[in-house]
């Protein structure tokens, strides 16, 4: 009984308290919010990586899909692998195999590179990554 009264009074108050323009505003705002939400949902999210050879952009790779690529570096081909939103490079021939030893990287701004090959990979995120605590690493 009390519940029915409450819901009824809510209906009447809503009805009485709002003009047509009010209701139109409520509806339009709701639709606009749904629209904005939809655009946000549809936007590509997740990280990408930029592959450069001698500072020239070779490719921008999405980290969303597992795949592998080859880049022709100065010391022969370098394999670039994407797996589980991480990326790594595997060198076949490089004096110290630094790139291979670096292993998987995934955070925004992370770098893996084979300097003698001229290949540098940088992860670009569209979201700030707070797990990276340092602005630079001194070594």
């Amino acid at each position, binding site marked *: 009984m009390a519940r029915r009264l409450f819901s009824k009074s809510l209906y009447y108050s809503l009805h009485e308290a709002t003009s047509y323009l009010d209701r139109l505003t409520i509806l339009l705002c709701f639709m606009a919010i749904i629209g904005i939400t939809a655009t946000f949902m549809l936007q590509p999210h997740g990280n990408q990586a930029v592959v450069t050879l001698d500072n020239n952009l070779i490719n921008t790779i999405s980290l969303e899909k597992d795949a592998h690529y080859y880049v022709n570096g100065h010391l022969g081909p370098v394999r670039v692998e994407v797996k589980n939103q991480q990326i790594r490079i595997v060198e076949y021939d490089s004096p*110290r195999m630094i790139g291979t030893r670096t292993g998987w990287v995934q955070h925004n701004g992370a*770098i893996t590179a084979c300097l003698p090959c001229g290949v540098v990979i940088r992860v670009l995120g569209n979201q700030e990554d707070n797990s990276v605590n340092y602005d630079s690493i001194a*070594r």
Partner: protein
Amino acid sequence: MNRNRLSIIVTSGIALFLATALWLDLIPRAHTVYSDTRLLMGTLVSISVWGHPKGKAETAMQKAFAEFARLEEVLSWQRPTSEVSQVNQVSRETWVSISTELGTLLQRGLLLGQRSEGAFSMALQPLTQLWGFSSEHQDEKPPAKEKLDRWLRLYPTVDAIRLMQKEDKSFHVQLANSAVGLDLGALGKGYAIDQAISVLRKEGIANAIVDAGGDLRVIGSKGSNPWRIGLQNPRQKDQIISMSQLRGDIAMMTSGDYERFFLLENIRYHHILDPKTAEPARTGLSSVSVQGKNAAEINGLSTAIFVLGVEKGLRLLKQYPGSEALLISEKGEPTRTPAFIADWLQEPIKQ
């Protein structure tokens, strides 16, 4: 006047004031750090800029990278066309005219060489080549003993590089003999960092880091937050042993035995060579970090301290007021001067 209208004007005024203040950077903004990385001088050069609009930051970074590329063409002995290479190609004991830029830099390096009693030298290019630390394919073994002995016999302990400034202020340089060749190494990288910073400043950038392969200089801050610099554990690549919170204008340069090295029969052969022995410096240190105003100077200083060892090194440091150092021994024990900015995070792994 209608009070409604007055109130609207006041509200709009407040909003307009807020907007203008934000627009004119009157209120410090916590923006994203914009950063970019290039492969230059044989290392990864990263520039990060904070607190400026994206377009401005990117233009400034481009110009700073261009400055780095220009200096690589002057200072790198690996580039056959560079000014340094041209000096190295000229037969010994003849005077070669050089640019004021290179001359001034050599002057500073020679002073450091004197003060460090020869521990720091810019004349070791032939020796570096013997050891092969800069070539693309490293032989994982030390060069033959005879070759090193021959180099040691030839290498003059004083006056390996002779620098002369004529009355018209032009610089001329002469190399002593075939055991001597210009390799500005540490000093050159530091100088390039300094130049990149001054380019950024000229472009109106107040907050930035220029990082060349782990050697860096910061200006400004990230608003109320300092720049946070981690120091890599010399014996464990993925571990950070200390954090330096830097702001204002400060450079931090590190020389270590772990950047370029090979291991043979448990002996670590690294790239910091001691001209007195023609071998990698062995003073019980694994890394030396120096903080100071001038990247070029303290970059040479960190190398010199590494070669000299703790005692002599700290004595040398006293000749450079405003410079502070953190020395880490091979066992992982730190020695630091009082004003070195770093929070020790953990005991490094002892070996």
